[in-house]
C-alpha cells in the first residue's frame, strides 16, 4: 500500500504560508494590469469594457475573465475602494497588494481541487504516482514565480485545464470536459493552442462510435455542439449584439508585435536568432550578405522587433504553418488511438509546437507544456527522461522574469529545491518502461543537466564580476535563452519519439 504523505492539503498549507510571506515581494506591471481591470469592470458599464484605454494596459482577455475580475472587484470594494478607480494608475496601497495577492492564493484552490480529482481518478496501484505528480504541479516554481511574485492567475486557469483533462478520462464525463475547456477558452485565449487536441479527441471519442469512424453518434454531436456554442454565446453574445466583436478581436489578438518577445522565450526562434548572431563574424568569409539595419538592434539584444542580419526573415505565415504542421502529427496518432494518455500526450505536443514555433511567444507559456506533461511524466522512465530537460530548461528560462536582487535567492533556491526534490523522487518511482530506452537520449539528458549549474552561476554572478553590470548585458540572457531552447527542443524531440513509439 502506497502512502500518500504529505497530503495535498498539508502541502497547500505550508505553500500558502510561504506565499503569504511573499506579499511584499517584487511585482511586475501585470499587477497594475489586473488592478486596472478590476477598476474597469467595476466602474464601467459592460459596453465600455473593451473600449476603455486610460491605462496602456487595456483589457485584452476574453469576457469570462473580465467577469471574473468583476466578481473579484465586488470583494475589493471592502478592501480599498480607491483601487477600483480607473484613473488611479499604478495605485498600490498595502490593502490593494494584500487583496490582489490573496485572490491569487484563494483562486488557486481550483487547482488544488482539480489535482485532488486527478488523484482520485487514478487506479489504486498508480495512486502514489499521481499524488507525486500533483504535488509537483501544485508546488511548481513556475506557478510560484509567475503567480505569486510576478503576478498572474495561472494557478486558477491551469486548475480549470486540469479539471477538464481529468473529466476527459471517463466516457461519461467527456461532455463536461468539453464544456470546461470552452469555459477556459473564454477565460484566456492562450489555450487556443491546445484546442485542436480537444477537437480531435472529443470528435473521435465522443462524437463518433469507438468502433467505427463512419458511425457518428448524432445525439452526442448535438449535445456537445449546443453546449460549446452555448458557452461561447454566453461569453461573446452580448458583445456581438452590441456590434463589438471586431474591437474584441483587435484587443485579444494584437498582431502588431514582433516575432520574439523582448526577452527571447526559449524556442526555435531563439536558436535561430542565436545562429544569426553567431554567423555575423563569419559573414564576410562565407560571402553572405549582411543586413546592416539589423546589426544595431542585434547587438543590443533587447528589442521588440528582432530582425535578422544574415538568415532570412521569418513571417507570421511561416510560424503558423510550422505550428500547425507540428500539431498535426500528434493529432493523427490521437485520431487513430483515442485513449486518455494519448490525449494528454497530444495536448503536451500541441503545447510544444505552439511554444517552439509560435509568433511572439512569451516565456511564461512554457507552463502550457510543463503542466500537462507532468500528468503523464511518471507513466514510465522514457516519459520521465523526456520530461527532465524540460523541467530544468522551462523553469530556468523563467528566471529573467524576476531581476531584482531581493527575489534572486527565492527564485533560484526554490527552483533548485523543487528540481532536486522532484527529479529525485520521480527518478525513484518512475516505473521501468516496456520498450528499450534510447541510450543517446539518456546521455544527452545527463550532459544537459550537468551543464545547467555552471551556466546559472556564470549568468547570475560571474558575468557581472567580469564585465560589470552594463557591458554585454545581453550575453547572459542570450546564453540562458539558447541553453533553455536547446533543452526544450531536446525534450520535444525525445517526447515525439516516445509518443510515436508508444
Amino acid at each position, binding site marked *: *500500500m502506497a*502512502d500518500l*504523505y*504529505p*497530503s495535498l492539503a*498539508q502541502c497547500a*498549507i*505550508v505553500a500558502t*504560508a*510561504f506565499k*503569504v*510571506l*511573499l*506579499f*511584499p*515581494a517584487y511585482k511586475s506591471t501585470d499587477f497594475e494590469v489586473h488592478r486596472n481591470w478590476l477598476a474597469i469592470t467595476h466602474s464601467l458599464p459592460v459596453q465600455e469594457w473593451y473600449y476603455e484605454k486610460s491605462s496602456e494596459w487595456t483589457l485584452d482577455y476574453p469576457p469570462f475573465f473580465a467577469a471574473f475580475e468583476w466578481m473579484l472587484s465586488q470583494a475589493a470594494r471592502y478592501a480599498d475602494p480607491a483601487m477600483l478607480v480607473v484613473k488611479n494608475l499604478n495605485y498600490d496601497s498595502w490593502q490593494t497588494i494584500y487583496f490582489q495577492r490573496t485572490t491569487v492564493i484563494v483562486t488557486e484552490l481550483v487547482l488544488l481541487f482539480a489535482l485532488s480529482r486527478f488523484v482520485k481518478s487514478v487506479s489504486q496501484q498508480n495512486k502514489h504516482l499521481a499524488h507525486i505528480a500533483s504535488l509537483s504541479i501544485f508546488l511548481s516554481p513556475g506557478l510560484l514565480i509567475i503567480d505569486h511574485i510576478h503576478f498572474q492567475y495561472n494557478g486558477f486557469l491551469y486548475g480549470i485545464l486540469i479539471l477538464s483533462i481529468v473529466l476527459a478520462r471517463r466516457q461519461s464525463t467527456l461532455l463536461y470536459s468539453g464544456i470546461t475547456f470552452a469555459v477556459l477558452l473564454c477565460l484566456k485565449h492562450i489555450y487556443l493552442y491546445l484546442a485542436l487536441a480537444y477537437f480531435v479527441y472529443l470528435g473521435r471519442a465522443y462524437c463518433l462510435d469507438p468502433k467505427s469512424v463512419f458511425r457518428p453518434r448524432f445525439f452526442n454531436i448535438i449535445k456537445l455542439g449546443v453546449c460549446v456554442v452555448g458557452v461561447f454565446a454566453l461569453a461573446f453574445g452580448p458583445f456581438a449584439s452590441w456590434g463589438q466583436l471586431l474591437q474584441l478581436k483587435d484587443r485579444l489578438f494584437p498582431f502588431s508585435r514582433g516575432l520574439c518577445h523582448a526577452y527571447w522565450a526559449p524556442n526555435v526562434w531563439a536558436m535561430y536568432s542565436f545562429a544569426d548572431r553567431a554567423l555575423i563574424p563569419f559573414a564576410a568569409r562565407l560571402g553572405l550578405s549582411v543586413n546592416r539595419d539589423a546589426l544595431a538592434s542585434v547587438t543590443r539584444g533587447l528589442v521588440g522587433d528582432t530582425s535578422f542580419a544574415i538568415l532570412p526573415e521569418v513571417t507570421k505565415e511561416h510560424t503558423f504553418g510550422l505550428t500547425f504542421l507540428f500539431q498535426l502529427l500528434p493529432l493523427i496518432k490521437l485520431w487513430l488511438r483515442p485513449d486518455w494518455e494519448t490525449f494528454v500526450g497530444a495536448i503536451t505536443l500541441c503545447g510544444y509546437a505552439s511554444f517552439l514555433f509560435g509568433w511572439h511567444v512569451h516565456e511564461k507559456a512554457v507552463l502550457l507544456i510543463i503542466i500537462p506533461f507532468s500528468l503523464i511524466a511518471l507513466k514510465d522512465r522514457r516519459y520521465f527522461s523526456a520530461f527532465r530537460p524540460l523541467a530544468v530548461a522551462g523553469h530556468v528560462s523563467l528566471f529573467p522574469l524576476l531581476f531584482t*536582487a*531581493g527575489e534572486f*535567492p*527565492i527564485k533560484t*533556491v*526554490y527552483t*533548485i*529545491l523543487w528540481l*532536486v*526534490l522532484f527529479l*529525485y*523522487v520521480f527518478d525513484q518511482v518512475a516505473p521501468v518502461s516496456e520498450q528499450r530506452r534510447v541510450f543517446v537520449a539518456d546521455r544527452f539528458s545527463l550532459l544537459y543537466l550537468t551543464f545547467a549549474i555552471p551556466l546559472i552561476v556564470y549568468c547570475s554572478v560571474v558575468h557581472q564580476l567580469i564585465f560589470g553590470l552594463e557591458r554585454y548585458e545581453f550575453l547572459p540572457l542570450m546564453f540562458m535563452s539558447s541553453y533553455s531552447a536547446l533543452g526544450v527542443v531536446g525534450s520535444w524531440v525525445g517526447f515525439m519519439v516516445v509518443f510515436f513509439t508508444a
Partner: protein
Amino acid sequence: MAPPPSSYRPRKKRKFPSSFTGSNNSLIVETDGKASPAFPLVSFLWSARAGVSQWLVLPLILMAVGLFRWAVSLWGYSGFQVPPMHGDFEAQRHWMEITIHLPVAKWYLYDLQYWGLDYPPLTAYHSWLLGKLGSLFDPAWFALDESRGFEDPLLKVFMRGTVIASEYLIFIPAVVNFLRRYTRTQNVPVWSASIALVAILLQPATILIDHGHFQYNTVMLGLVVASLDAILAGRMLWACIFFVGALGFKQMALYYAPIMFAFLLGVCIFPKIHIIRLLCISLVTAVAFVVLFLPLILGQSVLYAVAFQLAQTIHRVFPFARGLFEDKVANAWCAIHTFYKLHRFEASLLQRMSLGATLASILAPCAIIFRHPRASLLLPALSSVAWGFFLFSFQVHEKSVLLPLLPMTLLLAGDGGLSKETRAWVGWANILGSWTMFPLLARDELRVPYFVMTLLWAFLLGLPPTSLEIFRGRASLEDNTLGAELHVLTKLLHACFYLAMIAWHVLEAFVAPPPGKPDLWVVLNALIGAGGFGIAYLWCAWKLIQQCRRIDQKAADETDKKNQ
C-alpha cells in the same frame, strides 16, 4: 539514598533509561490498522523514513528553511523610516560604518549618543568584516556620518544577506553537528533527528527577531551550540573557546555562563579531581579572553589607556546605570511592578534584590550540574537557568527570551523529544515566547510574518491553535510508555494559555484600551507571559531533576548487578 557512581565509566557505555526505546514510535500512530504520521511535520518527511541519504535530506531541509528566512526578511525591519534614531537595523549598519572608518581605539568612544557600540568586541570585528564586504558593493552605504539613516532597498538586501550568511556559516553547522552527536548519544534514529532539525530551525521567535526585526542573535546562539557540541565530543577546551566567543559576541550569553561554569568545574572534580584539566580550562579561557580583547588593547600605547579602554568596553556592555527593566517585558519585575510600584525603592536595593532572586533561581540547577556534570543534563539545566535570568535579572529585554528557548527547543532532538509531552511543552513555550514579542514585532510591521511563522510552526508540530491533537488520547504505538498521554493538569494549563493568547489577540485587534491606560494590552501580555515563563522555568527544572534521578537510578541498578 542512591550510592554515588562507584568508578569511572567511559562515556560510550552509558545506558539510557528504558522507558524510552529510542525508536520512532512517537512519530507514528496507528489508524485503522495503518501507520500514519503523528503530526504534519512527520508526514513531510514521511518518505525519508526508509533511510534516504542525509546527503539529500539535509540540503533539502536547509534550502526549505532558508526560503522561509528569506521570505520573512522581505518584510519590515526595526526602525524603518523612523528618524532620527531608527532601530536595530540602523545600529548594526552604524557599527559597520564606524568600525571600518575609525581606529580600533575609538570604536567604543565615538559619538555614544548615536548608537554607540555597546556589544562586546567580537560583534565589532564581525561588523568590521561585513562593513568591508559591503563597501565593495557600494561605499555610500557605510560612509562615515554621511550614511546615518540610509535606507536603500539594495542595502536592505545586503544586510539581510549578511544575517543569513552569518547564520548559515555558524548557527546551522553548529546545530546540525550538535544534533548528529546528541541524537547518537541518546539513541535517537536519524529520521527523528531530521524531523527535530526542521522543528528547531523553523523556531518562529528566532526567525522573526533575526530576519524580521534584524539582529545577529544566531551567531551568538550558534557559538553556544558549538560549545555544547564540543562538550558532547569531550573536547572541553574547544567548548571554552566557543563559549568565550559567544560571550564576546553578545553579553547575553551570560545567561548560560553559570551552567557552563558549574559544568566545567564539575567535570574537573567529579568523579575524581583533575587538577590539570582544571588548569587547562582556566588557562584556555583566560587566553581566549585576552585574544578577544587583544586588538582593542594593541590600539593603545599607555597602560592607563588600556585600563580605560577595558573599563569603557565593559561599561558600555553592561549598562547598570539603566533601570531595573525596560519597556514592558514578560518577567517577574515588570509583573510585580504592575501591582506594586517598584519605583519607591532605591536603585541599589533593587539591584541587590534582582541579584538575590536571580541567584536563588539558578542555584539549584547549577548545583545539580556541578554535582552531576553530564552532557545529557545540559539542555534542561541551560534552559532553566536562562529562564531564571530572564525572569529575575536586571535590564531584561523581550528579545532575550530566545536564550531560554534555544536549549529548550533542542530538547526535541533528545530521547522521547518528539513525544507528546515534550512536544507539547516545548511548543507551548515557543508559541508563548513569540506571542510576548508581538508588541515589538507589531511596531516593526511584522504582524503578518508573526502570524504566519507562529501558526506554521504550530501546524507542523500538531499544536494548538491549529490542532487539538495533543489534547486527545489516541491509540499510539507508544502505549504504556511514559509521555504517551498528557497529564490532565497539563492539558488544562495549556488550554488556558492558548485561549488567553487568542483572546488577547482579539482584544488587541478590536478593542481600544481604556483612555487612562494606553498600555493595558501590552501589560496584560507581559503579565500572562511572565506567568507562563515561570511555569516553563519550573518545567525545565523538573525535567532536569527527573533526568538526573533517572540516571542515578540506572547507575544504582548497575552497581547492584555488579555486586550480586
